[in-house]
């Protein structure tokens, strides 16, 4: 699915250069459910930027499928993001002035699909996350869990091969977190690769593999989830 080969990233701050990612090496197979963990400042966000083609890297190689993602034009990068990757964020990032339906349909707008058609498709995806009846509500009228479901529906609508989730349960209570991770697992079962960036061991425990980052380096990219307890379903 994706492979990083000695990826390095520097940030220039004034005259100093900050080495944020150091020879990052790992591979994620098709259909895997992976967590990326690390403390604050470990380079998680930078890695997510690079994986989501929102930022470039300085050396190494990043392969997404058969494509080497390197110095893509802004237009090509936008196209990849639109068709291959679905994003789920901690703070949901729904557009407040759009209804749930319109928010879900937004990625299809950038594919040039007509309003009627994309609203029809968006309805199906809202149905899939159990929010069919909330289609005409704006985010301010919804709970955190509902917003995250809408965000997930939006991430799925472009039929991506990869879902990148940045602390998807960070703003949710434990019960809702569990439901969201259930939904993520369900999505993963349909064959979509899911990468969750988190610092929550319980969330990481729901995945099949954990990649740990420390000071911009991958310290462990193998199976390590056994060291964390499974998240228990609430009765």
């Amino acid at each position, binding site marked *: 699915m994706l492979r990083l080969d000695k990826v390095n990233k520097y940030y220039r701050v004034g005259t100093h250069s900050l080495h944020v990612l150091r020879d990052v090496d790992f591979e994620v197979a098709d259909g895997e459910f992976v967590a990326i963990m690390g403390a604050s400042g470990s380079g998680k*966000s930078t890695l*997510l*930027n690079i994986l*989501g083609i*929102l*930022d470039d890297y300085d050396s190494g190689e990043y392969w997404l499928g058969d494509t080497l993602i390197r110095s893509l034009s*802004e*237009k090509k990068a*936008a*196209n990849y*993001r*639109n*068709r291959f990757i679905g*994003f789920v*964020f901690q*703070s949901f*990032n*729904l*557009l407040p*002035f*759009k209804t749930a339906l*319109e928010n879900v349909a*937004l*990625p299809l*707008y*950038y*594919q040039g699909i*007509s*309003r009627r058609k994309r609203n029809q498709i968006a309805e199906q995806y809202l149905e899939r996350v159990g929010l069919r009846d909330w289609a005409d509500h704006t985010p301010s009228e919804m709970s955190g869990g509902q917003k995250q479901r809408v965000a997930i529906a*939006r991430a799925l609508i*472009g039929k991506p091969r990869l879902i990148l989730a*940045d602390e998807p349960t960070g703003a949710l209570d434990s019960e809702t977190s569990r439901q969201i991770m259930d939904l993520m697992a369900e999505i993963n079962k349909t064959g979509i690769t899911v990468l969750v960036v988190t610092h929550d061991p319980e969330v990481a425990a729901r995945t099949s593999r954990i990649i740990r980052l420390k000071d911009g380096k991958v310290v462990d990219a193998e199976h390590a989830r056994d060291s964390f307890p499974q998240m228990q379903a609430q009765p």
Partner: protein
Amino acid sequence: MIFFGLAALLIAIALIVGVTYTVGSLAWVTLLQWKDLVSFDRWTEVLITIKSNKLRTALTTISVAWGIFVLVFLLGLGRGLNQGARKQFAREATNGVWMIARKTSVPYGGYDIGRHITFDNRDYDRAVAVKGIDHISGQFYMTGGAFEGTGMMTKRGGKANAFQINAVHADAFYLTNHEIVEGRFLSKGDVADKRKSIVVGRPVVEFFFKKGEDPVGQWLEVAGVPFQIVGVFRDEGGAEQERQIYMPVSTAQLAYSGNDRLGMIEFTAGNAGPDEVKAIVDTLKGQLSERHGFSPDDAQAVHVHNNVEQFQRFSMMFMMISVFVVVIGLGTLAAGVVGVSNIMMIAVKERTKEIGVRKALGATPSSIVFMVIQEAVFLTGIAGLLGLSGGVAMCALIGKAHVSDFILDPGIDLSTGIAATAFLVFAGALAGFFPARAAARVNPIHALRDQ
């Protein structure tokens, strides 16, 4: 000096580079995103965004609408002033000079002051030879009319009315703004042969003749003498300009015991400037003072009414008013555009997160740039049209209310309207461009993490 020259050159280069860069970038992004211009879906998206930001929309609309309103109103008012002034002059030829015989005010050649000067036919004959004059006429003042003035009782059948009589040469036509609607004006032959020919204004015809009756060839009795109508004229200058009758100066002098007296000599000097006209006036005044024995420096013996000088002075004044009006208007508009740009800049800042989301979901930088520009153009367009309509309506109101004789039909013409609209679209694009560029540079991840 060299320093200022260099600074001016650098500023000019910076301006050219800046404008080329902005216009070029606008053209490039339009080329990339031209489909968005004709996409109903895209416009719906723009409308939704605009509708959901009511305060921003209201602020933008007000600042641009006000700018355009002021510009259009001032432009319209400037035009009204110009037209008003031209109408004041429309009664007479703008290149005409009238020299009227008056009383002396300076003792000269043994004569005391207060002596009445009267011109005669020889003065006219000598004036004809002066270089630079292209049309010239003498005028005999008939007096003893209905009001002891030049208004003489005119009769036909049982009807009688007083009309102003002008006893002139054929060239007098060029000193007026009359337009012949039937027949002809007085000819040189009329004057030479002392024919009893008259040319009358429309009100004279309307008074004496029934509708549809042909007045040319008919006879009118002017102060007891029958004259035949050879032509009818109209004049844009108003009814007063039309309530007149022209007859040959020679016939009038003979019929009304005028001998060879003239009260006025009037001429036009083609396209001559004020200096050339002054030279002609000085020559004529010299000739007259020599013949009639008054001081050439006597400012009152001959009253000179010089339209060339006055018209130029007025034109200059109104041109300055127009320039002032345009500068104020454009300044107001520029302030409006800067205001819109500021508001859009704040809007982009407010929408950092939204832009980040859109980028993450697949929006290209050019589509972001175009989205912001499209909104700006839409807003300025609508606001501008509001201001434009308001300005036009205000001008129409002032025109209707007839505030002053010096303001006539204020308003803007179609080409100014089109230019203003085109300028609006450009101003909108310009106002949107810099904020849009800032928007396109938004880092999605930073934006998305922005709480």
